[in-house]
């Protein structure tokens, strides 16, 4: 007779007994039975990625290449589920007898709904999507790498997960992108999501090095996208609460490929990809006002140059466009060449995946190239069915030279967009300024500053050598079916050498670099992870199961840098800092440690209603000394309504409702709480101390609370999948930099927890299998998300200004654009603005400057559309569009091209200036002129940046087997495609995504002085043996 116990005492009894069992004994093994079978899809083909698992238990197996699986189970009745990415889960019941074999086959249907796939979780063991009440975006990386035009990780992530914005801020090869998940949530901390590869945290810095503006290096792109099996994005605090005190901005979890448990042989794949790139952007023309130096447009002095006139004012201009003129245009056809191969295989107890890839990319600017070598070796050992050991190791060696660009007088952009026509050479080879002045002019000599021939820029180095090694070891122990333990350790080691150099050149046009200069920086980054977790699964009642998970984690992140600067060299061969006339050395070190532990309790009712609660405690070395540990609670619920026996709605075959709440934290930047003094020196020989940071011993973490709710639905037999989420998050105690009065002696800001930022929005995606016939398959995916960010409280008496065009102010989006706004103005007969006619809009930011908010740099809504057509099961055509809207961008390349003085020899300016009276409205003209005189009118150069981009187009062909057999290969794939095909936008600058700040982790967005992503065509071939 079974003794009835209440669920709670059963729970405590189970827990107590479980503990006792752990410490004393090993599990019993009565004689077992065998369960075996095949998992196939509706065409009869094996589903090679499928897994078969006993519901409510940790026992499971992955099928082999033929779709077979085998499980050893104790006698009893079980519910067994088979699932695979892209297919609907199937659950069947089976009874096992001791010593006997039972066959159970599964037939899986392709599904657009991913209800039962395994999703990443901080807890040990496997978690399926249906159990989790938060929205986790998953990208099937292998499929997307095949179907999409993707060469690096950022491109793989772009537009494939709702509300994950990846902005490719420049078109240089080897440059990084800015990644944001659900908007801006911190003003002083990092908005970069955490990056976890195979269970261990890895370095996710962007834009640390170099003084190039628009292009920056990003550690996100080191990983080879072909090695990735899946990418998951954990978006908001309701989910990230379990990931620690740095996870508020989101977590990107990458799982790399593993081998298969094929019993014999191995599978080898080799391939190559070749492509070329073209810059197809129109760059604006430069104008130089030569009116004072000539008698008219027909003056003989101007015979060698193109001339333009402003009929209203009678001004005569010489024009040039060094970026577009065939005789000076620096662009070349860029090239991409890639060679790759991988080997995978295994046996019963062991499987492996190894890969190698070499890329040689040449960008469209002559000095831009990137060489990259990637190796990976992933092993999985299964010495028994209770112990699994996964070791994943990856190595990247890359060398990238970015073209000098940005707001540098030694860059391509400043010498192209803002190059001075006065320095241009006419058709006869003479220099304009010399011809006009009649004598040698400094515009025509080597110190002409903002204008150098592009051949002088080409040798300039912005060279980054990276050696990166990431290793992770995951040991999974399942001593009994109801318990799984995981131990993860890992290290991410990056050694980087960055060189910023202007080589010696006797004719160098940049006077500040006469004699050459060479800056070397060698950051060594180490990220270590240790993670222990355990999960107990048990039954409280027949219909009520529970899981208790707990774990502890340790993270350490260290950067140690030694650098030097050398000035003035004897020639261009001796380049070490030692060889310079003046050599300076520097060093720096920073270390951050985080430890945490969590406890999670989940109840599942009949496998369709799940309720989870969790609590995490963290401590972080960057907190002020008065701060204690941080507690982060979270809770979520998931209800698969369609699994209710009473569910009768035919056309909705799957419906899951979910809701979640959580509080995550963001630790302050390391050292932000310290009061510090720095060294000063007298006569270079005696050391002094000088105040620097006022510090704040009470500095605590930012607390990010979120509520999220939504649903996942499958309609018409899961041919259509619909996901919807609404989120609302508030970041309290947001750290803001408060200025202290300079008369205190401390020049730097004090970090205080005073602010509050709110974010809310919707995320939705629609996946449809429009056609699913033998000869024709057509799928489409539509994504849509909205993000509204606002600084609801700043806590300071004045706003924080970022440069002169952006602000962090209460009531507005972080980094909002500001300007004084002229509402009306009038011109006189000569085209000049009548000063008394200028009228301003009312309003003020509170600082008396008369500036108001005129826009924001982050989009309020993003959409993407991806569709794939497969003909005859062989030929696949796929394309991706995306759109961002609701934001504005300040264009410095339009603003920056304005005259230094309103008359006289000066730098180039553009159409708007040259033809102020005809190309601009009186208001625009008044704004430009007032900006020139007083500043603060940047609004005339802030434009709507909405755009639609046609990003990718791919065509791929699966070669028929009779042809591949001739090559000895089991399969072959031919493919080709294009990237960055078209941009539809009203933005008048070069490109609405180009950002002079690149992928730097800050709020600055300024378009200009950066070249956008070029049009790329590529083709490739892979062979599998």
């Amino acid at each position, binding site marked *: 007779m079974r003794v009835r116990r209440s669920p709670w005492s059963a729970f405590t009894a189970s827990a107590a007994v*479980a503990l006792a069992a752990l410490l004393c004994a090993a599990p019993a093994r009565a004689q077992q039975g065998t369960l075996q079978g095949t998992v196939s899809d509706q065409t009869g083909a094996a589903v090679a990625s499928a897994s078969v698992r006993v519901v409510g238990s940790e026992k499971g197996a992955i099928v082999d290449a033929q779709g077979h699986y085998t499980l050893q189970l104790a006698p009893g009745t079980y519910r067994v589920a088979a699932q695979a990415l892209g297919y609907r889960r199937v659950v069947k019941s089976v009874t096992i007898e001791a010593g006997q074999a039972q066959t159970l086959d599964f037939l899986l249907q392709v599904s657009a709904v991913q209800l039962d796939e395994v999703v990443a979780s901080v807890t040990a063991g496997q978690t399926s999507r249906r159990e989790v009440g938060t929205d986790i975006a998953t990208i099937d990386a292998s499929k997307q790498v095949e179907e999409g035009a993707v060469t690096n990780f950022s491109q793989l992530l772009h537009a494939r997960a709702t509300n994950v914005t990846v902005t490719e801020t420049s078109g240089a090869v080897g440059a990084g992108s800015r990644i944001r998940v659900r908007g801006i949530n911190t003003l002083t901390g990092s908005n970069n999501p955490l990056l976890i590869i195979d269970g261990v945290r890895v370095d996710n810095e962007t834009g640390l090095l170099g003084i190039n503006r628009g292009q920056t290096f990003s550690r996100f792109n080191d990983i080879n996208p072909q090695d990735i099996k899946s990418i998951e994005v954990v978006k908001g605090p309701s989910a990230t609460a379990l990931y620690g005190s740095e996870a508020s901005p989101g977590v990107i979890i990458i799982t790399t490929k593993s081998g298969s448990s094929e019993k014999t042989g191995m599978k080898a794949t080799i391939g190559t990809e070749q492509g070329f790139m073209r810059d197809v952007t129109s760059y604006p023309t430069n104008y130089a006002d030569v009116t004072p130096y000539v008698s008219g447009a027909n003056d003989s002095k101007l015979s060698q140059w193109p001339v333009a006139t402003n009929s209203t004012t009678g001004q005569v201009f010489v024009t040039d466009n060094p970026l577009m003129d065939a005789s000076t245009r620096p662009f070349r056809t860029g090239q991409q060449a890639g060679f790759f191969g991988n080997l995978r295989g295994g046996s019963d107890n062991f499987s492996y995946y190894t890969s190698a890839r070499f890329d040689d990319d040449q960008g469209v600017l002559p000095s831009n190239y990137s060489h990259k070598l990637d190796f990976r070796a992933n092993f999985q050992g299964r010495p028994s069915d209770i112990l699994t050991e996964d070791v994943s190791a990856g190595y990247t060696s890359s060398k990238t030279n970015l073209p000098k660009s940005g707001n540098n007088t030694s860059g391509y952009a400043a010498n192209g967009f803002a190059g001075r026509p006065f320095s241009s050479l006419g058709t006869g080879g003479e220099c304009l300024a010399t011809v006009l002045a009649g004598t040698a002019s400094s515009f025509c000599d080597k*110190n002409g500053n903002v204008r150098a021939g592009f051949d002088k820029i080409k040798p300039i180095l912005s060279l980054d050598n990276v050696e990166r090694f990431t290793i992770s070891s995951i040991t999974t122990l399942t001593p009994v079916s109801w318990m799984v333990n995981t131990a993860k350790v890992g290290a991410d080691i990056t050694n980087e050498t960055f060189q910023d150099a202007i080589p010696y050149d006797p004719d160098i046009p940049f006077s500040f670099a006469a004699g050459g200069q060479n800056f070397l920086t060698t950051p060594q980054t180490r990220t270590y992870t240790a993670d222990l977790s355990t999960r107990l699964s048990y039954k409280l009642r027949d219909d009520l199961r529970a899981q208790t998970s707990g774990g502890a984690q340790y993270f350490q992140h260290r950067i140690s840098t030694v650098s030097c600067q050398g000035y003035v060299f004897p020639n261009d061969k001796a380049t070490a800092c030692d060889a310079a006339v003046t050599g300076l050395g520097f060093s720096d070190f920073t270390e951050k440690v985080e430890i945490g532990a969590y406890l999670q309790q989940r109840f599942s009712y009949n496998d369709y209603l799940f309720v989870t609660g969790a609590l995490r405690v963290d401590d972080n070395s960057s907190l002020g000394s008065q701060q204690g540990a941080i507690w982060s609670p979270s809770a979520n619920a998931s209800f698969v309504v369609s699994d209710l026996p009473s569910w009768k709605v035919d056309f909705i075959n799957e419906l899951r409702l979910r809701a979640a709440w959580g509080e995550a934290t963001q630790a302050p930047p390391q050292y932000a709480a310290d009061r510090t003094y720095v060294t000063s*020196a007298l006569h270079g020989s005696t050391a002094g101390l000088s105040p620097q940071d006022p510090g704040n011993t009470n500095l605590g973490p930012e607390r990010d609370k979120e509520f999220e709710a939504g649903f996942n639905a499958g309609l018409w037999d899961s041919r259509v999948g619909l996901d919807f989420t609404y989120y609302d998050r508030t970041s309290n105690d947001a750290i803001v930099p408060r*200025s202290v009065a300079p*008369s205190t002696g401390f020049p730097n800001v004090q970090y205080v927890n005073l602010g509050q930022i709110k974010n809310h929005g919707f995320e939705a995606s629609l996946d449809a299998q429009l056609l699913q016939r033998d000869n024709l398959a057509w799928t489409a995916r539509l994504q849509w998300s909205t993000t509204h960010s606002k600084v609801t409280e700043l806590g300071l*008496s004045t706003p924080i200004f970022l440069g002169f065009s952006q602000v962090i102010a209460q009531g507005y989006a972080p980094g909002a654009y500001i300007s004084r706004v002229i509402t009306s103005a009038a011109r006189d007969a000569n085209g000049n603005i009548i000063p008394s006619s200028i009228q301003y809009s009312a309003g003020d930011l509170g600082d*008396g400057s008369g500036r108001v908010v005129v826009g924001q740099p982050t989009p309020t809504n993003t959409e993407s559309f991806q569709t794939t057509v497969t003909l005859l099961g062989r030929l696949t055509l796929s394309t991706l569009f995306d759109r961002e809207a609701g934001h504005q961008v300040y264009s410095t390349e339009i603003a920056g091209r304005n005259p230094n003085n309103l008359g006289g020899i000066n730098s180039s300016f553009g159409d708007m200036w040259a033809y102020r009276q005809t190309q601009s409205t009186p208001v625009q003209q008044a704004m430009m002129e007032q900006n020139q005189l007083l500043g603060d009118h940047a609004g005339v150069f802030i434009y709507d940046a909405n755009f639609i981009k046609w990003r990718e187009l791919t065509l791929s062909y699966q070669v028929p087997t009779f042809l591949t057999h001739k090559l000895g290969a089991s399969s072959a794939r031919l493919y080709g495609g294009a990237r960055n095909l078209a941009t539809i936008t009203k933005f008048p600058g070069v490109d609405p995504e180009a950002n002079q700040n690149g992928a730097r982790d800050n709020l600055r967005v300024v378009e200009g002085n950066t070249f956008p992503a070029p049009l790329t065509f590529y083709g490739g071939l892979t062979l599998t043996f």
Partner: protein
Amino acid sequence: MNSTNDATAVTERIQQQRERTMRSPRWGRKLGRYRPSGRIVGTILAGTMLLLTACNQLLDVPPNPKTVPGTELTDPNSLDARMTGAEADFWFAYDMAIVYGGLFTDELVDGTGLTAVDQRRVQPDNGLIGSTDEAPEGIDGLWTPMQRSAATSKSAEVDIGAGSYADRIPDPGNSDAEARMALFAGYSRLILGELFCTTAFDGTGPEYSSAETYQLAADHFTVAIQASNASSDVVYAATVGRARAELQMGDDAKAKADASNVPLDFALIGDVYSTNSEKENNDIWNMLTLSQRFSVGPPFRGLVIDNTSTPDPRVDVFQDPNDQYAIDGSTPLYQSAKYLKADSPIRLASGYEAAYIVAEIDGGQTAVNLINQIRQAQGISQQFSSTNEDSIQAKVRDERRRTLFLEGQRMGDLRRYKARYGLDLFPTGPNFGTETCFPLPNAERDNNPGI
């Protein structure tokens, strides 16, 4: 019976297992090669407990090696570094203050786009003037670096005077250390008073007028002058400083008395700059010769002695034929030979300055004699003579501006000439404003609770 996962079945199984275990001591081997030892699992749990309890040690990270924690400053061993730091704070702010004062007046003109300062229309929200600190890659600020000097020198002066370093400085009130700190506390206030319309100090109010600021400076100078163990350099420099402050306040009698106590050949020269780092460079050299952002203004170019054709050696200004333009490519670049290198020293106070103060106050033959004495000491053979008071005063002004060219005196002088004599010698031009001083920056007004 079907085994299930419920508690009863588990308990029963465990019971059976325990019995089996107790019967067979070699349970590990009996149950297979890869059975986990209970010890492993136990160790994992124990390890987790240990990890959590060892929290605090694990979170100890090395401090930022580029900085010194604030707690170190009260250590008596830090006295030298503190004093050196306070003095360094002054000198590294002073060179840029000279540049800004020169740009605002007629000593320098802009060649980089700093038109607001050059054209005398600086707004209180000007970030460069108000909140920018030392900026090695760009242009240093004005208010913040000089305020740092004012704060550190005063706090060192007060702490020394209060006996915080009694072991090393037994008689603080008369010590050279306190006098030295007071000297720089005075000069930083004096310079801020001459450059800014109003000031504030110590992070608290009130807002001081220029006259009040001069008095604050004079008070610090008095501390230095009265220290009996102070070195003569410090005492003379403080005397010159106090005379300058008193002249600005209109206390002519006191100014003359102080200035008369300074020997003509005295000079305090800050030979403190070096090529070590950009911060330690002489900023006047940097702005004129290295980065070429500013140029010497027209009234100081091509100066000769009186009506001769002899170039005036005190204002040795030249133009490099190979490098004719400032960084904007159009402003003609005139450089000063006074500061030709990154480590060129800057004179802070001199007997010449004291003599000019007396000359301005007394006028007449006294002024003529002083002018000629100074010229003789400077190696200029031409002598000046006149009996017309206006010509004499004009000459005093002219000689003063030449001798003290780019020494941070011009701004105070032009303000005094306008306020006392109604003589407006500030530069003018299209788009120029009418200010005669820098406004109190918003960076101070907004963050100082006392204003």
